[in-house]
Every structure is written in structure tokens, then in C-alpha cells.
């Protein structure tokens, strides 16, 4: 009688997307570290928001035309059975790739900050096993985990960013637009590419309680995450200086290490690391969920849980083998590399689907 509905509330969708976005964007602050925007990183963050919002709108709007279907299902409806399947392979591939990259970044972060002698596989397993467990338990527990993690995560991040304010030197933010608009616009490319995370909307919307409000939840989560990003970019540049911030691997952690509140509170980076672990757990679980759910729909399997374990193994292996060290991840996130790659995976199928939709609409099928 108590049916286990695989539903998540709209606020849970907001929490999930907010945590995912903030986790990745804060961790290595791509607006600052990937290009030479330097002290204008905060400006780049603002522009990032508008460009990302456009992408999210494109993704979400199409998904809302088929509120009870995932992208795997409606692409088959729009393009026909076999071309549809071919095009819907893009998104699981994207999820797999993003999950692996996020996982590797987390491993590198923990290895560099806390556990220099621990093998990467151990660090990664601690998150992957938990993620597999929660996806196995279902989407509902996943949404609830997001509910639990959201306040802890947000408070930790805010404290991390607010503590250093005492040491901020806002003179570091000048001169504004010293190199003109070009590097600023260039710096937005990578963070906008990371908006590929919102492709999860196409898998999550069928499970949302009120799908019509899902796009609004997604956009507001993007807005709040962007505010935090702007704030982080400001604080990092103000405290560390633009050059040092851009050179650091993980600027926010460098920031928190650099400050001493008092004799006693000197090494508080455990808190952001903890928050980051929780955030990555959510990110990875959603990736695993979308991946297994997508593949099971593609192959018309009844239960996506059977795919979970093999996919988790593939994902961890990819995370281990995909990059040789952190420098490689960093060079991958250069806008020249990351943006075309991700935009191809993300926007090309989207463009095809939109076109197909308009043609079909003309033929008044819908």
C-alpha cells in the first residue's frame, strides 16, 4: 500500500543542482584558474551566469515538452527509433565522463591536502561506494540526502568564504578590465561548459513532483550558485591576489589555509573539505543515477539497479586512468579544450532534437 514512488520534490531538485554546481565550480574556481581573466574573474562569473542560464533554458524547455519522459525516450520519439538511440548515447557518455572527472578532481584534492600517501583508489572508493548505495536505495533517498547535506554544505562553504573577509584587500580587484573584454569572455567558456551538469535535468524531470516548476528550480539554483561563485572569485582575488589565485590548484583551499583567525583556529580546511566530500557524493550519485537509468532505458531494462555496480567500476577506472595527474586535468579545463569538447556532447544532440521538434511541430504531430 505504501508505494515506493521514485519521486523527488522541487526543493530537492533545487538542492541537488545547487550542490552539484557549487561543488565543482568552487573547488578549482575555473573562472580564475583556467585563463588570464585575473582580477576580473568576478565579472566573468556574472557573465557565466547569463550564458549558463541560456543553456539551462534550452535543456529544460525541451525536457518540459515531454514532462514524463527522459531524453532517452523522447529523442526516440522525435528522431525515430534507431537515430534516436544513437543521439541519446551522447548524454550517458557525458554523464560518465563528468562523473569520472569530478571523482578524479576530488581524489587529487584530498591527496594534495590531506592524505598524501593514500592511494587514489581508496579515496575514490569511499565516495563511489556510498554513491552506489544511495542510488541502489532509490531516487527518493537521494533527494533526502540532498536535503540533509544542503544546510551543512552551504554553511560550510559560506563560513569558508566569510572567515577570510577580515584579511581581504579589495585593492587587489583593480584595475577593472585592464586587458579589455576578450580574456573575460574567454574565461567564461569553461564554467559555462561545466553547465553540462544541468543535463541531468533531462533525466530527473520525469521524477519531479511538479515538472512544470522544475525549470524555475533549476534556474534559481543556478542563480544562487552563481552568487556564491561571484563571491568566491571576489574573496580569492582580494585575499590572495589575482596571480597567486590563478596559479593555485585549488584556490579556495589555499585561501582557507592562508588565514588564521586566532591561535586556536588555524587549520580549518577540514570543514570545506568535508563539505566538498558531501557535495561530491551528491554529484556522483546523480551521475550514477542518470547513467544507469539512461542506459537501462536505452536497453529497455526493467531495473536500472543491475547496471549500477559495473558502471561504478567503469567510472572509477576511468577516473583513475583518464588523467595521469592533476596538471592534465588542468590543461583539459583550458577553454580551448574543454569548451568544444563539452559543447559538442551537450549542445549538438540538443540542437538536433530542437530542430526535429520544430519540424515535427510543423507537421502538427504534437
Amino acid at each position, binding site marked *: *500500500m*505504501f508505494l515506493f514512488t521514485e519521486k523527488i*520534490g522541487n*526543493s*530537492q531538485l533545487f538542492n541537488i543542482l545547487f550542490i552539484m554546481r557549487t561543488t565543482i565550480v568552487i573547488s578549482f574556481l575555473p573562472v580564475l584558474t583556467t585563463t588570464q581573466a585575473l582580477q576580473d574573474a568576478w565579472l566573468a562569473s556574472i557573465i557565466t551566469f547569463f550564458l549558463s542560464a541560456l543553456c539551462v533554458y534550452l535543456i529544460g524547455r525541451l525536457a518540459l515538452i515531454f514532462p514524463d519522459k527522459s531524453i532517452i525516450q523522447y529523442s526516440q520519439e522525435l528522431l525515430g527509433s534507431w537515430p534516436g538511440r544513437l543521439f541519446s548515447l551522447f548524454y550517458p557518455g557525458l554523464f560518465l565522463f563528468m562523473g569520472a572527472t569530478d571523482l578524479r578532481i576530488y581524489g587529487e584534492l*584530498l591527496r594534495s591536502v*590531506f*592524505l598524501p600517501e*593514500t592511494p587514489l583508489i*581508496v*579515496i575514490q572508493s*569511499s*565516495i563511489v*561506494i*556510498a554513491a552506489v*548505495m*544511495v542510488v541502489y*536505495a*532509490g531516487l*527518493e*533517498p537521494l*533527494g*533526502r*540526502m540532498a*536535503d*540533509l547535506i*544542503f544546510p551543512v554544505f552551504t554553511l560550510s562553504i559560506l563560513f569558508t568564504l566569510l572567515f577570510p573577509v577580515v584579511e581581504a584587500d579589495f585593492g587587489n580587484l583593480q584595475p577593472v578590465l585592464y586587458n579589455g573584454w576578450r580574456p573575460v569572455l574567454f574565461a567564461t567558456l569553461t564554467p559555462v561548459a561545466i553547465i553540462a551538469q544541468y543535463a541531468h535535468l533531462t533525466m530527473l524531470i520525469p521524477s519531479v513532483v511538479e515538472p512544470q516548476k522544475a525549470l524555475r528550480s533549476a534556474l534559481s539554483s543556478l542563480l544562487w550558485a552563481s552568487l556564491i561563485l561571484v563571491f568566491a572569485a571576489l574573496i580569492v582575488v582580494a585575499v590572495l591576489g589575482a596571480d597567486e589565485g590563478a596559479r593555485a590548484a585549488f584556490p579556495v583551499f589555499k585561501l582557507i589555509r592562508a588565514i588564521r583567525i586566532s*591561535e*586556536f583556529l*588555524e*587549520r580549518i580546511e*577540514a570543514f570545506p573539505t*568535508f563539505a566538498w*566530500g*558531501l557535495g561530491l*557524493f551528491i554529484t556522483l550519485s546523480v551521475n550514477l543515477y542518470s547513467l544507469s537509468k539512461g542506459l537501462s532505458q536505452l536497453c529497455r531494462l526493467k531495473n536500472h539497479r543491475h547496471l549500477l555496480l559495473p558502471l561504478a567500476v567503469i567510472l572509477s577506472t576511468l577516473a583513475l586512468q583518464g588523467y595521469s595527474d592533476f596538471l592534465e586535468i588542468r590543461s583539459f579545463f583550458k577553454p580551448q579544450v574543454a569548451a568544444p569538447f563539452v559543447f559538442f556532447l551537450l549542445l549538438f544532440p540538443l540542437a538536433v532534437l530542437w530542430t526535429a521538434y520544430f519540424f515535427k511541430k510543423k507537421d502538427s504531430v504534437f
Partner: protein
Amino acid sequence: MSIKSGLLQKLARVLLRKIKNTRKPNAKKTDWKPKELPGLGDFNDLSQREKAFQDLPLSNRLEDNLQLFRQVTGESYDVNIQEFQSGPEKVPAALLYIDGLVDTNALEITLHSVKVDIFLTNMDEVHKKNIFETTRRRLLSVIESRTTGNMAELYYGISIGRTALLFDGTARALICETQGWNVREVSEPSAEASIRGVREGFVESIRTNTSLVRRRIRSPNLWIESMEIGSLSKTELAFAYIKGLVGEEILGELRSRLKNIKVDGILGSGYIEDYISDNPCSLFPSLLSTERVDRVVGNLLEGRVAIFVNGSSFALIIPAGFDSFLQAPDDYFEPFPLGAFIRVLRYISFFIALFLPGIYVAVLTFHPELLPVPLLLRIQAAREGVPFPVVVETLFMEIVFEVLREAGVRLPMIVGPAISIVGALVLGDAAIRAGIVSPGVVIIVAFTAIASFTIPSFTLGLAARILRFLMLFLGAAFGLLGVQFGLLVLLIHLVSMRSFGYPYMAPFAPFIWGDMKDSLVNLFWWKQVYRPKLLGYREPRRQPPGQKPQQPGKKE
């Protein structure tokens, strides 16, 4: 020698009995023939016996009935059969009851009416044919009574303290309410102490318990359903709820789960808990058991169901969420800021009780750089000369403490404090002086122990005690990463749990802002306008808003 003679005596006795038995039918000649009862012989096993007397009809003859009754109950010494003759026609009659279960006064009244008062009635009415009806209608009107024509029903009646009255010539029995046995007095529950709370706690009698609840909720919409569970023990079980407030699906689920219980005996509400719990393998309790009347009433008013089991002073409350296990009565009887403060303190203590040893071991083993240098130096200096790694030290002290705690519970009240003095002071102090453990570990373990004592629910405390060891191992093996993993797995387990459809971690996950008023903190009573969203959804408002008291003449 003595053994041999004993054996000889026994042999002789057996032989004698055999001779007697063979002679018995010849010696005692009556026209009465023992009715052959399949299934009630000496060599019939329990299930056959239970089945045999289930639907035995009573007979017209008193002798038959008594013989039957003796076959059913055997020679149980507490079962009394009082035979007498009633009325001017000297109709043979018998009173059946069990000693110790009946109220002697009520028994006296019954006897008096059938022996003496019967002469006050009309002669016609006490004729053998209608003496039964007369007694029922006219004589026993003071005492509540019912009739039955079934041996099983008769026996179950007297087994809860009723008295059966049988007349010759009537194939039915009169069951009179004469219950009256000793029950423990209503007293303050010792396991759930409170400072300003209600001092009444439940007792082992189900009637007393339901009456305690009924006295506090006088609405006719307090419904109490009852059923019997246990093929042999026939334990009475009742569940109380407020009709129209509780979701019917919860009640339906509860009824079906209770009906599915097939067991020989129920000795306490813990048995029921095992049978109807949603998460039997979980360390965390999914039913709230309490001895406090105010707690049960408060939960009923929120739209939950309370289950009472006869013979147990613990009521079970369903559905229960995680937050109900960290509520204590005093939160509600103290004004808002104080009650809220101790509530928050309890949540923090729960996390300390779970994680502190694990974090201590993890930090000292893997991340000593996280500690401020003076503190680290201090700890390291104190650890100088300790021959074990931190984890062994901590594990050792934790085990010592757990053993001490268990010993303190098992020992009689008078010896308890002595043990804690020996354990805590002597053992702890000696261990430090001998250099086996460092003072830091003792501080951590002691603080963890004290924190775990603040958890109001014993079951939840147990869960924390067991999981603490798990966190300790994870911390020792993988550092803070391991503790984080443990936390995640624990949370995943908690959020996937449900108690009768109610999400276990509500209102934290799923997050319900409106229910926060009574979870992490509890606000003023006049602020708690709505019932918990997932429980009292049928009648969400419990009071009109805006009842904040104001000083006279002062305007908002």
C-alpha cells in the same frame, strides 16, 4: 543406600498406583460414563489438546460439564470448583473460578445471590427449567454478566478473572465479571525521569493504562481497538488513536500486521515491536516505546497510534521518526528557550557519542596537523611511553567502559555506585599511572560516555554505542575520510528507512520547514499552530494562530 531405598519406594508407589488405576472403575460405580473426548488424553500433545477443546459445547448435565472442565484444566490447584445446590428445588449448580484472579467481594455477592437471594423470588421462576434465566435477569443484575455455551469461551472467561456459574439442566454458563487482582501501583517511570513532567507512568495492566490515557483525552473520538495475540498466552493488546486524525492507511497497515502475528506467547511490547517493525535488521528503532503517559497522549494528539500490550508497562508509538527519539518530556514543560536549548544540546551529544572517538583516533593517526601545535604537543607528551597505537588504547578504554556500564545495570542498586567508583576511578587512574593508556583517551572516552547518557531513548543509545565502534575502526583505517564514509552510509541508511510509511528522517529529510518547530528545537506552544504535516494532514490546524500573550494596554 538412601538412593536405593528411594528407588524402591518409587517402584512400590508406581506399582500401587497401577493397581489402583485398574481397580478404580470397578470400585466407583456410577451411572455416569466419562464421555470419550478425542484429543484430551494424557498422550495427546499440546496442539491436539488446544484444538480439542476449542469448540466443545456444554452439555445439559452439570456432572458432564464439570467432568469436561476437569479434563480440560487438569488438577490445577488454583482452579476452584465450588458445587452447591440452589433454590428451593435444590438445583445442582457450580461456580468455577481461578484463585487470585477474582475479587473476593464480587465472588461473595455472586454466591450470596444464587444461594440466599434466590429464595426471595417467585417459586415458579426458580424451577429447574428457568433458574438460569432468573439468575441472569433478576439476581445478578448488579454484576455484569454474559452467557456462553462453549467450553473454550468459559475457560477464557475465568482465565481473566471472571466467574462461571453452571446450573444443572441448562447447557449454558453464566460468566460474571468478578475480576480483581493485584497490580502494581501507578508510579513514576524510573527509566524516563523528568523534572516537571507528569509523574504517572504505565503499569502492567492494560486496563489501567488505557484508563490513564482516557482520563487525559476525554473526546469520544479517542478510539481503542483491542485484539488477542498468542495462541497460548492469549495476550490482550489494544491500540489507541484519535479517529479522524490518524491516516486510515496507517491503521489498516497496523491491523494487517498485527493480525499476521502467529506466536505462542507475547511477554512484552518488545515482541510486538519485532513483529511489526519496518526495518527489523536496522540498529535504529522504528517504534517508540515509552512508559510515560504524557508522551503517549502528546503523540496521539499529533496523529500517531499507541499500542498497549497487557503485561508490559511500555506502550509503543507508531509511526516514529528519528526526532522522536531525541525528545525528552522536559523539553515541553520548560518554556521555549530553555527547552529548545536542551534539545539542541541533546542532538549535539548524539553526534559526539557517535563520532568523537572515531574522529580523535583519525586526527591523531592521520591528520595531526589539524590540531593547534600547543594542543598536539600536550597530547603527544601525555602519550609518551604508552606502548599502544591510539586506536588500541581507545578501543581498550571503550570496552572497559562498556563492560562497566553493563555491570552497573545488572548489579543491584546498592552495589551499583561501588562498581562505578572502582571502575571509573580506580581502573582509569591505575591505567594512566601504569602508562597503559594516556589521559587524553580517558577524557575522550569519558566525555563520549557522558554524552551518550543524554540520549533519552535507550534503544537509540544502544545504536550509537555499537556504531561508535564502527566509526572508530573506520577512523583508524582511513582517517577522517573513513569517518566521512561512515557518516554517509549511516545517513543513507537513515533516509531510506520508513516507519509505517512515515519517512524516518522527517522533517529533516524530506525537509519540511513547517515541522521544524518541534524537531531540532521546540517553539512556544502558541507558535505550534499546525500538526506535523505527514501525520496530522487530515486536520492540519491544532489551534488558531496569534495566541501570543500580551501585556494589557500594550499594542502590537
